[in-house]
């Protein structure tokens, strides 16, 4: 079953006519059913050379900056939600290395299919902050026209997909997308994000299976953050790891310290390189931890005592990276302060702009259902426009 090329002119030898044990199939170095976790960044801030991706100092700083920026945004957006100024936010507190490390491994031609926690990846690929904040407000400037909840944006120009809420659906789509690129002989890889909970979805199964059979150039990036809302990973699966699920599909897999930027960059780069070489899919399990509630709608106190976070706070990906910067580049608090002030300013400015923009037009509600509105939508649009406005028009 390891041949992905589909030969139809010989009998499949899968159920092996001889019924003799088959020769063990050679494993890719990444293909591990074991519990080893790839780590690079040591507690003291030094790097283990074995898997060091050898980032330039400026690259490390850029990534550090991006991680800090994302965290600051998270804090600000949660506050905005608490103040009732936006409806919702779902963030990546504690998962910044997993998100930024992986997306930084993508090349310009590569594509990203997001789950809902990867706004950091979108920003890294160039999503203008203003555009992101417009989406948080669902205003007339929001490119998805205020139709979806906050954090459900798109960014085609940056090769970044469309966020949707149903868990898992993007995984199968990413496989189709990457497969299409392969069929068109375009050299690009597709990186798809999902959580540990999503591994239970039907789409995970279809996606990994199709990717294995058709040797699709896709990178499956599973953020194992310990939780699916209130459901812990031990209730999600009884397998030893999430990575070992790759075995079921002939998809090589690797488990990585998801709070270790360098290790994440390393495995993501390797996986993209494999895809680029035509060797097919890779499953990455990044072990990290959701330090916040699931979203602004969730209060984790009901199922998770705060003390459980302590070990993970000690493994905070930003702290660990800062230790490295201190050690290797003499990083100072003043430099942190500088980032903070800059981010604060840009975020505030964007919010000030977005908040003033009007809600989307009534017309916009009927666009894009189809390429052209059919008669029944034209009729409904005109009815709506001719009628009265509700209390709370445009959510205000």
């Amino acid at each position: 079953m390891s041949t992905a090329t589909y030969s139809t002119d010989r009998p499949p030898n899968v159920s092996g006519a001889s019924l003799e044990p088959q020769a063990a199939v050679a494993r890719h170095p990444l293909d591990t059913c074991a519990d080893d976790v790839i780590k690079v960044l040591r507690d003291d801030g030094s790097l283990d050379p074995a898997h060091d991706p050898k980032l330039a100092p400026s690259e490390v700083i850029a990534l550090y900056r991006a991680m800090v920026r994302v965290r600051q945004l998270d804090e600000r957006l949660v506050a905005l939600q608490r103040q009732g100024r936006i409806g919702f936010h779902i963030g990546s507190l504690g998962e910044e290395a997993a998100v930024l490390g992986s997306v930084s491994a993508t090349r310009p031609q590569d594509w990203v299919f997001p789950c809902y926690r990867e706004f950091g990846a979108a920003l890294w690929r160039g999503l203008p902050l203003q555009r992101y904040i417009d989406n948080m407000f669902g205003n007339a400037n929001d490119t998805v026209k205020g139709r979806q909840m906050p954090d459900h944006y798109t960014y085609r120009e940056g090769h970044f997909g469309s966020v949707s809420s149903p868990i898992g659906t993007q995984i199968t789509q990413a496989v189709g997308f990457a497969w299409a690129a392969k069929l068109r002989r375009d050299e690009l890889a597709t990186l798809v994000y999902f959580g540990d909970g999503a591994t239970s979805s039907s789409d995970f199964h279809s996606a990994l299976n199709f990717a294995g059979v058709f040797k699709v150039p896709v990178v499956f990036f599973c953020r194992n953050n310990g939780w699916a809302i209130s459901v812990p990973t031990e209730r999600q699966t009884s397998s030893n790891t999430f990575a070992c699920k790759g075995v079921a599909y002939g998809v090589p897999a690797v488990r990585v310290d998801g709070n270790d930027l360098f290790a994440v960059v390393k495995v993501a780069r390797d996986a993209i390189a494999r895809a680029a070489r035509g060797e097919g899919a890779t499953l990455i399990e990044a072990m990290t931890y959701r330090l916040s509630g699931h979203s602004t709608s969730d209060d984790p106190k009901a199922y998770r005592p705060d003390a459980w976070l302590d070990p993970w706070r000690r493994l905070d990906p930003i702290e660990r990276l800062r230790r490295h910067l201190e050690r290797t580049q003499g990083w100072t608090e003043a430099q942190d302060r500088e980032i903070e002030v800059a981010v604060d300013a840009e975020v505030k400015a964007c919010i000030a702009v977005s908040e003033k923009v009007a809600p989307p037009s009534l017309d916009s509600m009927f666009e894009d259902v189809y390429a052209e509105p059919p008669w029944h939508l034209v009729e409904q649009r005109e009815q709506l426009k001719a009628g009265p406005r509700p209390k709370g028009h445009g959510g205000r």
Partner: protein
Amino acid sequence: MPQMNMVQAINDALRHEMRRDSRVVVLGEDVGKVGGVFRVTQGLFDEFGDDRVIDTPLSENGIVGAAIGMALYGLVPIPEIQFADFIYPAYDQIVSELAKYRYRSGGEYPSKLVIRTPVGGGIRGGHYHSQSPEAQFIHVPGLKVVCPSNPADAKGLLLSSIRDPDPVLFFEPKRIYRAAKGDVPDGDYTVPLGQAKVVRPGWHVTLVVWGAMLYEALDAANQAAAQGIECEVIDLRTLWPLDIDTVIESVKRTGRFIVVHEAPKSCGLGAELVALVNEKAFLHLEAPPLRITGFDTPFPYTLENEYLPLSHRILPAILEMARY
């Protein structure tokens, strides 16, 4: 009688029935320790334990498929789907299996369970936390569909649904989970399936509605009354099989029929009601039946109140129809 909101009343019904009948189990995502994302199952885990209040992996297909198997064994599972918008991964198990089990086995294998799930708009949930998929289940023979509009009905209808021999989809209008409050009888009582309720008697226009939109219809009816138009407002309660007698009796009196629902208009339950009214009260109709519904677009986020068939859209329809 204690005052409760919908969440409390449904919780009360579940607790009541789980104490009474050890075959009842609750399963779903986050239904356990945290008591569901809307806290409908709160406290059940502590009282009944992990064997009867079961947090599952993230798979609606698994939840419903396993629940069907449990039901075949003789349990009475009550799976929760976190939002009705996420019921579609389980659609195959529901329409191909659950709905057909009794029929295809010649009655040998009934599969009785109740799928609970929050439906509808009103919480700024956008496309994926707002849908009302009743029509997609009503069209499938073998299923019953229920949607309460107030706490007392919610408890009584849920108890009926659990004790009914057929599979039931129990749709909980999340917009009024906490907003709808009322007296809820203690202990055991049921509200029968298949019986609508005339919530407001009237003689000019018949308004059929259910769930959260009931309050919008009542609001509009009250405004219309100020203009001398008396609407009869019927809360359908059981969406399928529906209480045809109450609807038709009313339409025969009023000659005017409006149905209100949140789901998109085309091929919704409103269309079926119009068709039934045509079949059974055609000669009594004095104006074309009207549907005031969600539009035929995905459910929008910012313009949610524009999308929903709130009273500001129902009232003009009443007035127009009365003038017809």
